[in-house]
């Protein structure tokens, strides 16, 4: 097991280095003097020179990069140009929001998508199966922001069941927080639900047609046990893959959704930073997002081991 984990980490390490280098290089690619982006127009020449030495712009690029990584690793993300707030504090406030949003979306996909897919697979071409096919097709072409708008229209404005937007931290008031997070997480999760449903259906159909299922049935295994213990466990492996692969799309959806529902998450931080030409928070938020996605990929790989007994570690 440890060897397997180590191998995956070694495989993902160059990608993590490359992505962080790309985020770092945003500063190098910036047209003009980067100290303008970091300190604004009003800074004095001395301040600019001091920052240039601090960031080591006079040094070779690999050296600069190493220093930058060092700063990031010790939690020094710089300060916001606009508010002078340390970017680390902004991250601390915003990471939980985006994390909650994506976790709830994945939860939704598993809780609705997997049973939906199983039901569809049990009666091929039945009405449930047709519904799943249509839902899967539509769910993938549905733009997040439109889904969000439609959900607000229906559940917040017409039916008045849920609040249309706003945010309360989970720790402060869990009930109010969840109420506010339901519509956003459905918005982010809806296309994942569709994909998971379709994948569960496909892989259940495939697994159910295999010999060992027939053997188990011949042995007199009960229907529930057959489905859950024998079929589902193997059918879930590709489903986990799909969820892992969709992490990037999910985060993209979260970025837009945070804007619709005015949630103070990482996506909002990036977009606000772009509008105020405030690069430090944008860089930090993008870095955190990418590293997060890479870590989820690692977790996905490792979870195969737990699901698939055939993968010997």
């Amino acid at each position, binding site marked *: 097991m440890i060897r397997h984990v180590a191998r995956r980490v070694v495989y993902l390490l*160059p990608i993590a280095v490359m992505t962080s280098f790309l985020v770092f290089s945003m500063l190098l690619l910036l047209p003009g003097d980067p100290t303008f982006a970091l300190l604004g127009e009003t800074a004095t020449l001395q301040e600019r020179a001091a920052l240039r030495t601090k960031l080591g712009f006079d040094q070779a690029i690999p050296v600069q990069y190493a220093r930058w990584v060092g700063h990031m690793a010790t939690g020094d993300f710089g300060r916001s140009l606009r508010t002078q707030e340390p970017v680390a504090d902004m991250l601390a406030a915003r990471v939980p929001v985006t994390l909650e949003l994506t976790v709830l979306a994945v939860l939704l996909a598993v809780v609705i998508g997997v049973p939906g897919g199983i039901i569809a697979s049990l009666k091929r071409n039945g009405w449930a199966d047709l519904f799943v096919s249509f839902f899967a097709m539509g769910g993938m072409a549905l733009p997040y922001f439109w889904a969000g708008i*439609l959900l607000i229209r229906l559940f917040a404005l017409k039916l008045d069941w849920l609040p249309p937007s706003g945010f309360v931290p989970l720790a402060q008031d869990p009930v109010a927080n969840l109420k506010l997070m339901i519509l956003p997480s459905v918005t982010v999760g809806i296309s994942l639900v569709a994909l998971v449903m379709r994948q569960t259906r496909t892989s259940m159909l495939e697994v159910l047609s295999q010999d060992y299922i027939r053997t188990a049935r011949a042995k007199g295994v009960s229907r529930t046990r057959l489905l859950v213990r024998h079929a589902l466990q193997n059918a879930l492996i590709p489903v986990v893959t799909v969820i892992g692969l969709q992490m990037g799309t999910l985060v993209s959806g979260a970025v*837009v959704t945070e804007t619709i529902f005015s949630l103070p998450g990482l996506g909002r931080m990036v977009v606000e930073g772009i509008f105020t030409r405030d690069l430090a928070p944008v860089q930090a938020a*993008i870095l955190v*997002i990418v590293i997060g996605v890479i870590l989820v990929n690692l977790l996905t790989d490792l979870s195969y081991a737990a699901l698939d007994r055939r993968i010997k570690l």
Partner: protein
Amino acid sequence: MSQSLAPALAIRETRSESRFVTAARRLLHHRAGMCGLTVILVIVICAAFAPWLAPYDPAEIDYDAMIAPPSWLHPLGTDEIGRDILSRVIFGARVSLQIVFVAIVLSLLVGGAIGLASGYVGGRTDNVLMRLMDGLLAFPLLVLALGVIAVLGPDLINAIIALAVVNVPGFARLVRGQVLSVRERDFVQAARATGAGHLRIMVVHVWPSVAGNVIVYASLRASAVLITESSLAFLGLGATPPTPTWGQMLATAMEYWSAWWMSIFPGLAIFFAALAFNFFGDGLRDALDVRIGE
């Protein structure tokens, strides 16, 4: 020599043509693919003939008909300053299609060149380029696009550049893989033996056998590019306000909740366009018998 070559050339001609015909026939029988193609054609016609099809000027302000619900005068209603939504949706098709097309062609050219060079040259070049592509691929699509815009600044040209950059690694990886499988084939070796230069081999001999897959991939990417484009427009990072875009119309609609028509119709346009691109891409993939994508 020339005598013996002529029949061979003729055979090649008929074979390649019949392959095209087979693909076209298969596409014609692909129901979802044809549905997609029909919708795409409708959108293309809307885009091409927008000034003639649209009942109003998309920027024409009418203070007497602000936030008017759908009626005979304005079939899809009007927006907050009395502009006709139908006309704006039709002109929006023009903007979106242009952006999607330019972005995909750009990423195809750049990604294709990187993939060709990487696969054909191999070695260190390949290694460096592919690590760079892996790094770009690790970013979520929209987040990478936002990163590019953060560096270049928010405007339409930069949004197009961002959409192109985001799709470069996909094309590069695809083309590289194809090139690797073609590189050692007999006809490439033969070209090399006749003394063809590297550039000629890449462009004349390798590229055509890769092109089919690239076209399928491009059409499969179209819906994702469209959705990313409208996401950027929705966030206010696409074309600037007087230009009508579907995404930006939806952003405005969020300030006028009572006007359902403002949020329904532009959304429907994006939804059906994305769906159509998906269906057509699938159809094309089946017709050309290519196994890529999901």
